């Protein structure tokens, strides 16, 4: 059990209760994700409508909340088309390759538990102590990076196997974009891991719990890592999710429907669901990494319930932010997207990571903190100046026509 990266508290004797707990958690996480995705699609449509001064879905159920369900049922009954020139097996495989990593990503997210007053978030279930998260492997957050790097395959193969021009162009764009932004994403996760000293998501949440600085400013990594990794992660995650303003992949004016142009029926629905599921999971991961996950004060009643409430509140705030950004900002140009990724986010997060590392070394060695960090900042700024100079020179030479 331990070998599979399961709950470390379950190692030792495994009885029926343990198996039941794991099964219960799997079902709970699965159901939560599906319901959350359904609500997220409704929420996004509703909020975007509000931003655009229209009503949005309002017929199915109260406030149109069942609209997604109705759409899903409709998709099931649509004809399933496979284009003549499609690569059949890969065409069928691609939507599944998109959905499975989307589900797996959520397994490492701690979604509840009492972290107030020095509790470690464990709960009692059928006489066993366990965490409110499906799995807490030692590699924790690396698993999330692995899953998000696998998610590229679904998009890529869908575009390729359709046997048509626009999907192929869309999938080439998508894979270039996702591969570029993964580096920035990974580097900002590094900053969090460096600060908390653990890869396990549960450990990261525990490190952020407690009453915090001055008794009221929470101990969140958002502050402990100095805002920059958070901003980089937020931007890179939007690009990784192919959400507006980075939705070059699905630029309808240029690429029709991009990689899922040729898909119909339930296969299209799978892509659609995976996209929104990834948004939900990414919000959950941001909350875990930077905002203390389920950690928060327990006001009245059972503490574990407050964990879930805090987690959901924080997650909803981020989901609202995603929709807000989507309905406010226009889409960026492709060269702007690549410039932002390679020339701003990656150097910035790398520089910040080095600065953070310097800070921690200075603390360990009892050096003068101000001098060390100041010196580090000077070195960082020099590096930034050099990079700027190099970019300016190469641009000038390109304009002169010396190199292409």
């Amino acid at each position, binding site marked *: 059990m331990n070998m599979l990266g399961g709950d470390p508290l379950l190692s030792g004797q495994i009885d029926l209760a343990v198996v039941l707990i794991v099964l219960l958690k799997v079902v709970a996480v699965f159901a939560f994700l599906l319901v959350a995705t359904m609500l997220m699609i409704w929420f996004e449509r509703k909020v975007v409508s509000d931003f655009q001064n229209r009503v949005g879905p309002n017929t199915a159920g109260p406030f149109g909340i069942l609209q997604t369900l109705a759409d899903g049922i409709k998709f099931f009954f649509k004809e399933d088309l496979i284009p003549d020139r499609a690569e059949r097996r*890969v065409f069928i495989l691609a939507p599944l390759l998109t959905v499975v990593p989307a589900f797996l990503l959520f397994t490492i997210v701690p979604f509840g538990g009492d972290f107030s007053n020095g509790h470690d978030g464990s709960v009692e279930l059928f006489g066993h102590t366990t965490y409110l998260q499906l799995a807490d492997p030692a590699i924790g957050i690396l698993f999330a990076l*692995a899953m998000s*790097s696998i998610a*590229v395959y679904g998009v890529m193969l869908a575009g*390729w196997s359709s046997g048509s021009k626009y999907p192929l162009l869309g999938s*080439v764009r998508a894979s270039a974009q996702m591969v570029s932004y993964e580096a920035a994403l990974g580097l900002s996760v590094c900053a969090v891991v460096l600060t908390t000293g653990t*890869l396990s998501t549960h450990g990261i949440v525990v490190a952020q719990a407690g009453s915090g600085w001055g008794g009221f400013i929470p101990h969140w990594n958002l502050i402990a890592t100095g805002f920059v990794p958070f901003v980089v992660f937020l931007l890179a995650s939007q690009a990784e999710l192919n959400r507006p303003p980075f939705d070059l992949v699905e630029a309808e004016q240029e690429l029709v429907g991009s990689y899922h142009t040729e898909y119909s029926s339930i296969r299209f629905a799978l892509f659609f669901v995976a996209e929104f599921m990834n948004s939900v999971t990414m919000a959950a991961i941001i909350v875990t990494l930077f905002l203390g996950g389920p950690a928060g004060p327990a006001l009245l009643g059972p503490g574990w319930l407050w964990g879930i409430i805090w987690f959901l509140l924080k997650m909803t705030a981020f989901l609202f932010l995603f929709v807000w950004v989507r309905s406010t900002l226009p889409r960026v140009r492709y060269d702007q997207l690549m410039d932002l990724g390679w020339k701003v986010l990656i150097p910035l997060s790398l520089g910040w990571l080095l600065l953070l590392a310097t800070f921690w070394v200075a603390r360990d060695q009892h050096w003068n903190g101000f001098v060390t960090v100041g010196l580090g900042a000077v070195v960082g700024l020099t590096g930034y100046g050099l990079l700027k100079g190099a970019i300016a020179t190469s641009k000038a030479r390109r304009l002169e026509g010396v190199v292409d």
Partner: protein
Amino acid sequence: METVVFIVSALIVLAGGLGVVSSRNPVHAALSLIATLFGIAVLFLNLGAQLLAVVQVIVYTGAIVVLILFVMMLLGVDREEDLETEPLVGQRLLAGLIGLLFLGAVLAVIVIGREAIVTGTQSVTGAISPTISNISQIGTALFTTYVFALEITAGLLTIAVVGAVVLSRRPNDLAPIPEPESMINMGDEPLTAIPEEGAH
């Protein structure tokens, strides 16, 4: 449990490997390669090497094969290939013979060695110390014992990146390389057609 996981993932690894060499379509071959790499990641997990497993997935499956596929799609080299022709004559026969020889050698070791082949020493990929986590052990080893090798590798990678950038820029003020003499005065046929008189 461990044996079952081993058998299943070993079968996936083998099937993937066979798929790589026997697929007619390069993209299918790349997909089989992914299956193989995943199987290896599961084998690592089975040995308790979680970090190696996840690094295997991130680096090989998530980066290298993605780049291979990307290049294949961009260059459009995803045509079906003819597997009937042998680029090197006798290549397949030799490969089969060497494979059999290798299998024979492994079997011979098992048969001759009998009980002695189970040495009881720990696997190389397993944890050295059960109390300290894999990740901190690897980190400590990398940044103390093997720090020189690590730095040299980092330097090598930087050189490779700079080299790729230098090679990929095309200065366009260079004069085109002239055709060799032997190609120009080959015979009475000029390379470019001489305009006929009064053609304008």
